[in-house]
């Protein structure tokens, strides 16, 4: 079962004298349970549009999106989103931000905080439970966002450049953290990034998208995250010859795409 995108297209209508934008065209993609799908591509090639489609914020111009065989009609608790920015609630402290989804689902106070506390620990935010979120660093805020998305035990986790704002070290740690969580919980993940290295390391499937019209230009199956989860160290995986070779290959594709567009 899982998630199935079937020949989906999105055309943003013409506005302010600009012609209509074919943001996505003929997207076919299936995300099985256990899949970690990473989307790479130049800015403006429709990655966020695809994520919004799956999240249910946007309906396709044509084609359909099926979750466990049922068409996606709108947003729902089975698909949690980690946003790039601006999605925390500054009037709540860290604990209440993480517990926000549970609160909306009517989970009672004590149970709610117990679950939220678990994910706060998991993301290394212990000691900050009562801090206002606007006083945290960007990386910590991002981790609050990830913790919040995990609390409701979604089937599909959608992440739009969740680690873009982090420094190199925190970013590598967060990658490992997300992989470990994914390994333990067996969720389907759809993950957008601009970093080729991150994409190769994290995913089990990689889609490389091209702009105008936005489409999936290349697909790869990736072995690296399984090697990491089998015990190999992250740096070792990223420094292996196979990894480097594929990284260069993917970079070449993306650069070629960029030039073809210009």
């Amino acid at each position: 079962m899982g998630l199935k995108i079937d020949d989906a297209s999105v055309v943003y209508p013409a506005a302010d004298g600009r012609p209509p934008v074919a943001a996505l065209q003929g997207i076919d993609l299936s995300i099985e349970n256990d899949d970690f799908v990473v989307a790479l591509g130049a800015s403006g090639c429709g990655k966020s549009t695809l994520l919004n489609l799956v999240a249910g914020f946007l309906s396709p111009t044509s084609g359909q999106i099926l979750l466990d065989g049922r068409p996606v009609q709108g947003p729902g608790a089975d698909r949690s989103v980690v946003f790039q920015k601006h999605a925390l609630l500054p009037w709540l402290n860290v604990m209440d931000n993480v517990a926000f989804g549970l609160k909306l689902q009517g989970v009672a106070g004590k149970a709610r905080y117990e679950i939220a506390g678990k994910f706060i620990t998991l993301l290394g935010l212990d000691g900050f439970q009562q801090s206002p979120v606007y006083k945290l660093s960007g990386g910590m805020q991002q981790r609050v966002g990830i913790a919040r998305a995990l609390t409701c035990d979604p089937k599909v986790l959608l992440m739009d450049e969740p680690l873009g704002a982090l420094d190199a070290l925190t970013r590598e740690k967060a990658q490992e953290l997300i992989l470990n969580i994914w390994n333990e919980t067996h969720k389907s993940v759809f993950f957008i990034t601009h970093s080729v290295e991150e994409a190769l390391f994290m995913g089990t499937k990689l889609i490389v998208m091209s702009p105008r019209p936005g489409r999936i230009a290349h697909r790869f199956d990736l072995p690296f995250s399984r090697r990491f989860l089998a015990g190999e160290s992250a740096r070792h995986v990223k420094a292996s010859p196979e990894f480097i070779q594929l990284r260069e290959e993917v970079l070449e594709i993306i650069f070629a795409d960029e030039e073809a567009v210009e």
Partner: protein
Amino acid sequence: MSDDTRDTQHKRPGGLFSFLSKSRATKPGEIYGVPGQGETLWLSLGSIAVLLFVWWLVTAMGWVKPLFVPSPGAIVQKFVDVWQNGFTNTAFHQHIWVSTARVFGAFVLACAVGIPLGIAMGMSPAIRGIFDPPIEFYRPIPPLAYLPLMIIWFGIGETSKVLLIFLSVFAPVALGARAGVRSAAIEQIHAAYSFGASRWQVMLHVILPAALPEILTAMRIGIGFGWTTLVAAEMVAATEGLGYMVLSASQFLQTSTVIMGIIVIAAIAYTFDLLMRWVERRVVPWKGRM
């Protein structure tokens, strides 16, 4: 010697227009580049002191007649006098109480109706379509212009007075609440929906809290309009109230009572504004922070 010149080069005077020059590094705990950041207490106290001094000077030197501008001392004396003996056979605190009750009564009513209506207007195009024309139509009209209508429709009793103040508070509060609905970031709203929230929950848990800073600001602006309208409201058949006191004193050319009444009104309004600012700092410390 050389130390001196270096000092003057490094210290840039914080003059009136310093905000137009390049900003200097801030102290820890402050944020660089926040517009209008800085302490104003001493400047404000100084400004008040200078105004008082000019006032005193003008009267003490006899440059203007006491009929036009009585001395500060005369105002204080008048205050003490009215405080002890009342005005037109009514105790001073009674005047204050009646006016405050009118303004705050109207204010509470206007908030109770205006804030929910404003939010509804922000949330629903249908409600906005219905209520936008009447509010925008009456909003710019000076209360004095429709005061006669109020009297014809509602008589000369308390109703028309409170209603007049209510109307002047209502528009800014409703429009502020309506604008506040747009404060929530779309990501915050999407996050709530992706947890399966209903529209009602999104409003309660995201849109309302995000709108709170603007609603509080609108309330501050609204009560200001309320005090502005007080004197107009008490023009009609009033026998009590600060506005009434000012008006009837002016008919007898008791300038010192007029000025004293004005200062008392300003002081009450200012105290309430300070209170609202304090509430704002307590309730929405995150205002503008995310």
